[in-house]
Structure formats: structure tokens, C-alpha cells
């Protein structure tokens, strides 16, 4: 296969397989379950193909339609995109295997879940592969609309309320982003990231563009204090949707912010370029602490996991001050590890919560009623995911925190180091709060509904993924370096191929 297909083909497949599968699922709902899983497998295959290609041939630039930037739209794949694509493929496959089990009880939801989720996947893959600011805007909109529609799928009052709020937030975020695109286009005559990276200069235009785009993307990423929409949305959506939202959707807007920062704005210098990372770091630190404390206070499992996401988002932003304008690579790699680990682990945790919900008919933490022996696989998945979230070894979360701490200690940023450690301790608090109650019986023993094995195993395998990520350095480390995403701007490396 690698002989027949090149990197460009794999990249094409990553966008078009989910797109066409979405159409097919919409057309033939009866076949959606297996079409969806088939598409997920194909996407994973394409991702592996792309990763293989990147590792052997370096970063990839594809001119769609053959025009090339600035006239046409270019695709771009480097280590940063590949890592996120891979995480998306794994989580996507896990959720796709899980979903038929979950939605068996809700055929009406199942029917819309598939096309919406596959369109969401199209947007995620498209976003990670795009090198064009306006194309990224369109991807953001596909992402936002499909995510909001998925959130509303449960049809409950809380779900609809949360989805409506999410939709408005998402639209506002994309609008702000588009405003920044407008400014940049008129300032520098292109929307290609690499070309912009060469042309952009410090000044009011760049500053304003940075501010509005960052604001829009922060809103979508739910960094404190923009997190208000997240817990209700992630807490009330159907479990597989919560998993997608928490694991994947917020990563996409974070990725875009990171990409813009690395390739366009971090090199601009000036007061803003110095202050913004510090501000983001402070907000991130506040998010870690606030989100964790809120998670500890929750009585409902899904809300607890949702607040944990608020906290985990905070970690991602600690990379900005720690990397600084000198692009301290270790900090960015730490952030990437944390993002990947969070994706896998959080998906596992939400899917586990879905199992517990299906089993008991509720998700009150204090009434988990011996879930440990009644749903051992699910609880194992929850705990293994939790281990990575806490940053305990061996796990992807541990590697991420280790690198983040390393960066903080090297630079003497004690405050951030303390936040990282404290966040881990608080995370252990809320994860084991759940686990503790899973050992105790309730006064009146409850009968549970059966939970299909595919739901239990998909959660468990995702959690294993989060753990195994801790051992992935031998191949993930070189992959992250492909195209030097954390160093030079795209264009200078891109010229090589």
C-alpha cells in the first residue's frame, strides 16, 4: 500500500473518507453502524499511512487543485498535525465502536449521530491539515455546527440549553477569528499561513488580528474565564458525544491557536508578544486550580469529568509562558503530550461514565454501588484514564507533566511547577472520590442494566492508549519533530519538498 499511495493521497483520504461516509450514513441510515466503523478503520489506516510518510519523507505540502498558495489552498502536514490526527483517529475509532452499543437504546439519536459525527471528523482532519486561514475558518464552522448539533442530540431540556449556548459561543468565536483573517488578508495579501509568516510585521494590524483571533479561539477552547459553556455542554450530551467534545473538539481550536502563535505571532516581538504568553499562562494556572476544585465538588459523574476538562485545558496554556518567545521546545512537546494524553484518557472516562449511566440509570457519584465488581472493565478504564489525568506514571499524562515540570524548573518558574503538581494532587482527589464510592454498596441494592462488551472494551482500550502513550517516545518524539513545528516558521522548512 505505501508504494501505491503517497502522502498527498493519505491526506486526501483523511478529509474525504469521513465526508463521503457522512453522506452515505445520511443516505442509508440502516447501514450507518457498520459504515461508520468501516470509515473509522479507513481513517486510522490513512493516518498511519500519513505518519509513515512524514517520518520517512518529512513534512508534506499539497496544493489543492494544483494552484498553490497564495492563489489556491494548500494542505500542510507536519509533526504537530500528525500527532493530533493520530489521536483523533484513535479516539474516533474508539467512539465509533462504542456508539452502536450506546445508541441501540435510542435509534432516533443513532440515525443523526453518524452523519453529524462524521462531518465533525471531516472538520477535525481538515483543520489539522489546512495551511490556509480562510479554509480553516470554514473548517471551524463545520466543527462548531456539528458539535452543537451533537450536543443537542439528547433532546433533554438541559442538553438543548447547553447546546444553544454552545452554538452561540461557537459562532461568536468563529466570527472573531474571521475578523482576524480579514485584517490579515488586507494587511499582507494572502491567507496562506506560511506566506503570512514571511510577510507579517509587528504593528497594529498584526496585534489586532492576534487579539481577535486569540479571543475567538480561547472562547472555543474554553480557557478560564471562557469555560462557562463547557461543563453543561459536556455534562449533558450523550456519552459518546461528550467524549468527542472533550477529547477532540476543544483540541482543534487549541491547535489552531498554537499554530497561529508559532507560525505567525510569536516572532513579532514587542510588548504584546511578551505579555500575552504570561497572561495565557496565568489563566491556564487559574483554570487548573479552579477546574479541579470544581470537579472535586461535583456530585454527578459527568459534570465532574467535564470540570476536569476545564482544568486540563489549563495545562495546555502553561506552555505559552514556559516556551516563551525563544520557543523552548520542551514546553511545547510537554503540551502536546498532555493534549494527546488528555484526548485518549478523557474519552475513556466519558465512555466509562456512559457505561455507568446505562448500567445504573443515573450518574450520582455517591450511589455507584459496588461498580468495581459489577462493571470491572469500565471501572478499570475510568481509573486508567484517571491515572493519566492525574499525571501518575506510567502514562502519557505523566510524560507531559514531567516535561512541563522540567521546563518550569530549568527556568526557575516555581509558581507554574507548583500549579502543575497541585493540579495532579487535586485530580487524584476527584478521580479517587469516584473510585472510593465504586467500592461501597448503597443501602438498597440496585439492579443494573446490561452493558454491551463493545462499550466496555472500547473505553478500556482508549484508556490503555493513554497509558501506552507514556512509552511512545521512541517514535512519537521524532514524529513531533517532523517539519520542526515548534521552531522555524512553516515556509522555511516547507520549501524543502
Amino acid at each position, binding site marked *: 500500500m505505501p508504494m501505491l499511495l503517497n502522502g498527498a493521497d493519505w491526506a486526501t483520504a483523511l478529509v474525504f473518507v469521513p465526508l463521503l461516509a457522512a453522506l452515505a450514513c445520511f443516505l442509508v441510515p440502516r447501514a450507518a453502524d457498520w459504515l461508520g466503523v468501516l470509515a473509522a478503520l479507513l481513517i486510522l489506516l490513512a493516518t498511519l499511512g500519513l505518519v509513515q510518510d512524514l517520518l520517512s519523507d518529512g513534512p508534506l505540502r499539497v496544493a489543492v487543485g494544483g494552484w498553490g498558495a497564495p492563489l489556491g489552498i494548500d494542505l500542510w502536514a507536519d509533526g504537530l498535525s500528525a500527532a493530533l490526527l493520530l489521536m483523533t483517529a484513535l479516539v474516533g475509532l474508539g467512539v465509533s465502536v462504542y456508539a452502536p452499543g450506546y445508541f441501540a437504546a435510542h435509534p432516533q439519536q443513532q440515525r443523526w449521530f453518524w452523519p453529524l459525527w462524521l462531518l465533525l471528523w471531516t472538520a477535525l482532519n481538515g483543520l489539522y491539515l489546512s495551511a490556509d486561514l480562510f479554509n480553516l475558518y470554514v473548517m471551524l464552522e463545520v466543527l462548531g455546527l456539528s458539535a452543537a448539533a451533537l450536543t443537542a442530540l439528547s433532546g433533554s431540556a438541559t442538553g438543548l440549553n447547553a447546546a444553544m449556548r454552545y452554538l452561540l459561543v461557537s459562532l461568536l468565536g468563529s466570527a472573531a477569528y474571521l475578523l482576524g483573517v480579514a485584517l490579515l488578508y488586507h494587511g499582507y495579501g494572502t491567507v496562506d499561513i506560511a506566506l503570512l509568516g514571511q510577510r507579517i510585521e509587528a504593528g497594529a494590524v498584526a496585534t489586532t488580528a492576534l487579539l481577535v483571533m486569540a479571543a475567538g479561539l480561547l472562547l472555543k477552547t474554553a480557557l478560564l474565564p471562557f469555560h462557562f459553556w463547557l461543563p453543561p455542554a459536556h455534562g449533558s450530551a450523550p456519552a459518546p458525544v461528550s467524549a468527542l467534545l472533550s477529547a477532540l473538539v476543544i483540541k482543534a481550536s487549541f491547535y489552531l491557536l498554537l499554530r497561529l502563535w508559532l507560525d505567525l505571532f510569536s516572532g513579532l516581538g514587542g510588548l504584546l508578544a511578551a505579555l500575552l504568553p504570561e497572561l495565557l499562562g496565568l489563566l491556564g494556572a487559574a483554570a487548573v486550580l479552579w477546574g479541579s476544585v470544581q470537579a472535586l465538588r461535583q456530585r454527578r459523574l459527568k459534570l465532574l469529568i467535564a470540570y476536569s476538562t476545564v482544568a486540563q485545558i489549563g495545562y495546555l496554556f502553561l506552555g505559552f509562558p514556559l516556551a516563551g518567545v525563544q520557543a523552548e521546545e520542551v514546553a511545547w512537546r510537554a503540551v502536546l503530550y498532555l493534549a494527546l494524553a488528555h484526548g485518549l484518557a478523557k474519552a475513556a472516562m466519558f465512555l466509562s461514565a456512559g457505561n455507568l449511566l446505562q448500567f445504573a440509570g443515573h450518574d450520582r457519584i455517591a450511589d455507584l454501588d459496588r461498580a468495581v465488581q459489577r462493571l470491572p472493565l469500565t471501572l478499570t478504564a475510568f*481509573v486508567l484514564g484517571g491515572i493519566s489525568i492525574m499525571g501518575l*506514571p506510567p502514562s502519557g499524562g505523566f510524560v507531559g507533566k514531567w516535561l512541563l515540570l522540567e521546563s518550569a524548573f530549568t527556568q526557575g518558574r516555581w509558581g507554574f511547577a507548583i500549579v502543575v*503538581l497541585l493540579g495532579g494532587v487535586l485530580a*487524584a482527589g476527584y478521580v*479517587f472520590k469516584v473510585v472510593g464510592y465504586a*467500592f*461501597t454498596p448503597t443501602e438498597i441494592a440496585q439492579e443494573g442494566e446490561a452493558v454491551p462488551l463493545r462499550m466496555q472494551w472500547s473505553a478500556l482500550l482508549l484508556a490503555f492508549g493513554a497509558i501506552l502513550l507514556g512509552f511512545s*517516545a521512541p517514535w512519537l518524539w521524532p514524529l513531533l519533530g517532523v517539519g520542526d513545528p515548534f521552531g522555524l516558521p512553516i515556509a522555511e522548512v516547507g520549501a524543502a519538498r
Partner: protein
Amino acid sequence: MIPAIDAALPPNAWLPLLVLASSLLPGLVIFFLAEQRYWTRTLLNLAGSLVKLLLVGAMLWGVFHQQQYAASLPLLPGLDLVLRVRPLSLLFLSLSAGLWLLTTLYAIGYLEDSPNRSRFFGFFSLCVTATVGVAMAGNLLTFLIFFELLTLTTYPLVVHRGTEEARRAGQIYLAHTVIAGALLLAGTVWLYTLAGTLTFTTQGFVADLVERHRWSLIAIFVLLIIGVGVKAALVPLQSWLPRAMVAPAPVSALLHAVAVVKAGAFGIVLIVYDVFGVEVAAELGVTKPLALVAAFTILYGSVRALFQDNLKRRLAFSTVSQVSYIVLGVAIVGPLATVGGLVHLVHQGVMKITLFFCAGNLAETLGIHKVSEMNGVGRRMPWTMLAFSIGVFGMIGLPPVAGFISKWYLGLGGLEAGLHWPLFVLAGSSLLNAAYFLPILHRAWFCEPPEAWPEERDFGGNKETAWLLLLPPLVTAALSLLIGLFASMPFTPLEWARLIAEREFYQP
């Protein structure tokens, strides 16, 4: 006497990995066994522990003859997960492997017919896996990883009973160990950013940093010691230990004698000798405060034990006290004290597990949980109480039981280092030990038994209790006698501790 190292031979990677696998794999399989598959589970348990014991034995022989055992797995660029078997590792390894076998036997008898045995034995095996991982850690990162795994795998054992009390105890246990883990992590990363390596080295790897980073090193030392000190139950970090007594008896035995507290004490040994190097640590001025903390802990634990009526709690406070003997030996700079501390790692394990086995037997057979219920129990359960008595004599430090050897070396070590106060601490502690243990023996052997025991179980015939419950304490009691009597034979803990001190810590 000792053959030279054959540098041409690559280190053997299989044995360390097999040692891990011999408990990991059975553990994982056991999780999936149905509750009623008693014989399959037992077979797996016993096969695993026997194989582990054999492997450890083979490595003991090999290391004595200067064989190298090491395996590694890259985790991060420049940082590997390293297993390396050295004489020091073997001290802890053989203790774990030996006592695991006995505790498994005991647990099989103890948990007969109780629910969730597959889960119990699964975590039990994982816990041992983590312990041997700690023992074989070749660098601080590996140590940290297995140390945290130990926290995770012991938690389900602590809350095993699923009562509200057990859940609370579990939360407290976690609160202590997780915070400690965070500090350990902080210290480790910080050290790594300064030193650029974490590989355990004879006489430490920080000597070059002392001049430039004196205060950082002191801070790191404090972080690391607190990080492992919680598990070693150093005062004031000890409060989780007595509460964790809600766990089933085999767990208490394991927590107190082998896995958790010993991992903590072992960690202190590693930090002082292989991270800092005892001379560097002394030069930094951190060993003296550590010795004082240890001394205080010794006395504090003993005093608290005096006032406990609950037998297991009394034993728990006794553990708090006894583990710090090890720390004291480590913190007094000098070969003899080191030998005393190291040898106590093993001695205390063997003796304390005897006591816990016996306490479990009393609870399981007669429903006795309190000291005040033990009147005349020696007549009803003579063999159990015989074993208990030997353990007690060892704890007090009466010759020829093993405890005497430890105290002898610790005292001598203190004198060798020109210190007199350790002697007083040891003497005071022995008096206190006698004060809280001898009344128990008096009650058991010389008081009249009550008309009925709190909750007596019949094991058929005239048996005092199930043989699976009786055998392990008898074996460990015999062991504590033997390793005391024949302390200077080769391959005894004492001789091995001397070998470690000679080969690793005090090279000319």
C-alpha cells in the same frame, strides 16, 4: 573470594523482567478468573510466587559471583526505565519474594469463602510486582514509577472490604501518598534539571553540584525524603498507617512488613546512598536532622503503641517505630550503622509479619481484635502464640532473635560515629517495646481464659486453626530465630548487608 567482573558478558536482561512478570502475569490472569475457580487461582498464585523465589535465588547466586542483571526501556530522550539488580536490590527482593509466598499461602486460608477473591489476589500480585520494581529500580525515575504504582495497587487492597470506614481509610491513605508522590516528582525533576542524570550511582551523582547548588540540593533532599517518608511513616507523616488497619489481615501484613513501609524505607536508603552519597549528604548537613526525625519517630511510635487496645493498631504503631530503625541506621554515617539499618529492613519484615499473621489468626479463629480480649489465649492457640512470642522477643531485641542483631549493629554504629544518643534511643525504645508487648504475653500465657471467645470458628477436630493460617507464622517465627542465631553464615541478611556496605557504600 569474589571473582572479578567479566566485562565481556552483556548484562542478563531476562531475569529482572521475569521477576516482574512472575507476579504481573498471574495477577492479570487472576482478574479475569471467575470467583469460584479456587484451584486455578491458587495454582497461579503459588506458581508465580515459587517462580519468583527461584529467580531471586538465582540472581542472589549470580550477583554474589559478580554477574550483571539489567534491562532498560526508553521513556524519554535521555531517560530510560532501568531495572538493575544490585546487592542492595536483592536484599529487598528476597524479602519481598519470600514473604510474598508466605503471605499468599496465608491469604488463601484467610480469605476462604469471602467475596471478591479474584480482585483481591489480582491486586495483591500487582502490588508485589510494584514492590520488586522498586527493589530493582536502576534510576530515580524508575523508582518513582514503581513507587507510584505501589500506591495505586495497594489502594484497592485497603478499601477491599467496601465499608464506609474502609473507603475513608482509603481516602486518607491516598491523600498522604499522592501528595508525597507529587513532592517526590518535584524533587526528582528538579534534580534532573540540575544533574542531567538520575542513574543510581555508588556514592551518589550530585557531588559536583554541591558548590553551586548547595541550597537547591538541600531542598531537593527534603522533597525526596518527604516524598518517600510518608510511606515509611516518618513522624509527622505517619497518620495513614494505623487507619489503614481496616484492611484484611494479609494486607496489613503486606503493607506493614513488606511492601509499602519498606518501599519507603528502601527509598530513603537509595536517596541517601545512591542519589546523594552518604558523605555528600553528611556534608550538606542533612543526615543529622534525618537521624533526629528517625529517633523521634522511634520513640513516638512506641509511646503511642502503649495506649492502643486494638491489637492491630498497637502493631501498627510498633511498625511506625520499628521502620525508623532503618532510617536511623541510614542517617548515622558509618559502615556499622548502615549494616544495622539495612539488616533491619529484613529483620523487621520477618518479625513484624509474624505478629500480623498471628493477630489475623486470633481474629479469624476466635474473633479477638483487642488486647483486652486475649486472656488465656495461649492455651487455646499455643502454636500461634508461640510464634507471636518469638516475634515479640525479636521486637524487643532479645538475643538470639533477629531483632537483637539489628539493634546491636545500630548501637555499635552510633558509637563508631562518635554518637552516644542513638544508644539511649535504642534502649528507651526497647524498654517501651517491652512495656507494650510483654503485658500481651502475660495475658495470653498466664491469665485465665474467658468462658467463651468473642466469635469462635470451628476448624474441625482439635485443630487450633486452619493449617494454612498456622504454617506461615510458624515459618516466619522460625526464620527470625534462625537468621538471628546463624547471623554470620553466608547469605544471611547480615552477611548480605555487610556485602552491600563493602561493595557499594564505603568503597575505599
